[in-house]
């Protein structure tokens, strides 16, 4: 790099170092360029991507509810929107609050099984 060239040395050196800088910018791997983009969008992103945070999120997959009460409330809400519990005419006539729910009224946890379309 630092070869002794007489006379025109300073001009050549300048051009070389400029060219070198340009080259360096282009030579940044596409991966590193993508990293720069990501860090620009999410400045708070931690330095250790594969570390505990990511892995712990993976291990905790499926944990959606605080407790079973929370889960059952959520399921009941969904079911009530889709299928109001079947009530007879007599029961409909009763005043709200007098009616005690029976197992038949409480919606089932899972909808009826549908066959796979691959077998169709």
């Amino acid at each position: 790099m630092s070869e002794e060239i007489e006379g025109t040395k300073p001009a050549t050196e300048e051009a070389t170092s400029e060219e070198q800088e340009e080259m360096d910018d282009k030579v940044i791997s596409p991966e590193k360029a993508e990293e720069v983009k990501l860090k620009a969008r999410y400045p708070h992103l931690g330095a250790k991507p594969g570390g505990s945070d990511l892995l712990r999120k993976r291990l905790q997959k499926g944990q959606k509810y605080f407790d079973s009460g929370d889960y059952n409330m959520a399921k009941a809400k969904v079911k009530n929107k889709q299928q109001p519990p079947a009530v007879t005419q007599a029961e409909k006539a009763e005043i709200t609050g007098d009616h005690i729910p029976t197992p038949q009224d409480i919606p089932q946890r899972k909808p009826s099984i549908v066959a796979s379309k691959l077998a169709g």
Partner: protein
Amino acid sequence: MAGAGGGSNDVQWCFSQVKGAIDDDVAEADIISTVEFNHSGELLATGDKGGRVVIFQQEIENKSQPQCRSEYNVYSTFQSHEPEFDYLKSLEIEEKINKIRWLPQKNAAQFLLSTNDKTIKLWKISERDKRPEGYNLKEEDGRFIDPNTVTALRVPVFRPMDLMVEASPRRVFANAHTYHINSISINSDHETYLSADDLRINLWHQEITDRSFNIVDIKPANMEELTEVITAAEFHPHQCNTFVYSSSKGTIRLCDMRESALCDKHSKLFEEPEDPSNRSFFSEIISSISDVKFSHNGRYMMTRDYLSVKIWDLNMESRPVETYQVHEYLRSKLCSLYENDCIFDKFECCWNGNDSVVMTGSYNNFFRMFDRGQRRDVTLEASRESSKPRQVLKPRKVCAGGKRKKDEISVDSLDFNKKILHTAWHPQDNIIAVATTNNLYIFQDKVN
């Protein structure tokens, strides 16, 4: 019978069949989550997110002719797993079938293991083509006859009936995994199998459901120190004492069960050295191995990470012997792939019958084949547009940058929602099963 030889260039892949609904509105339950041929290739099983298994059976048009056309038709379908809720941990357990593995056939019935995140089940699929007729105390429709009216005795006989295929759960292997099961693998000893979750691997006997042995445990004493998880595991095809497991850090460990009861110390560690100057935020994520498969001959293993497929010689731990780029053009898209979570997609890979070609999926419903001997690769597409009977598949090309040629597709036009994660290759013939989101495509070698 068609040999499994021939490189990806000798073979002309033709559309054979497609299974599943055509409509674009895909129900979650219909998403295919696993595809597996049995050992003879006669049966093809699929599992989906709804916990259902569909088995197809090969029906050969003309058995006397070599290279005859065959079709796979529905043989049996059943609900393998149901959604569950773990009340103790407030954990929803998905019914999605993560893996199906066939047992080698020992008698007339077929057996397979299917697993979701927590429970493995052994299913027996048997045929019934005769039924007893002529009971003394029952009418044909099942009504009981008054014994007092019976004046003569007869021996019931078996008469043929329409074929009925029955699937019944024979064993349920539950409560052995705290974390989510990612792999099951049947041992060549025909007696045991392993199941692997994120942190542990268990060894089971196929007959015993109330006990399993823990053979690998990488859970750290302090979960804050967790640096890697187990991503896949498989038994060696012939050596019943050997298995491998891959990690999220891109390493593969080979363990020998003869060494100790708990195989936490590996016999071999396969890891490709990384140039530290090339390291980026994404390096570890894209090095995570999503699948590991031994070759049929047991001398090699193949791993799939986000961008490549690597073939390892079991005798050389320092680096893979072959590396194939699946979709290198995605390296300059990692930022957006991280944002839309695609960078975490788990692609599988498979070998052909004689280990000369390997296959894996990609995006835009593309899948790739790499011919190891001829050093050639091809990109094909599973699409409804190329689904005319026996239509030859045209090779596809992705244009990474610069001028896009006619028939090429640019990286920015790729549909990242159309992923091919699961593919399977018939154990002997050039027949492949490729799963798109909710459809199963079957392609075959062109019949001369």
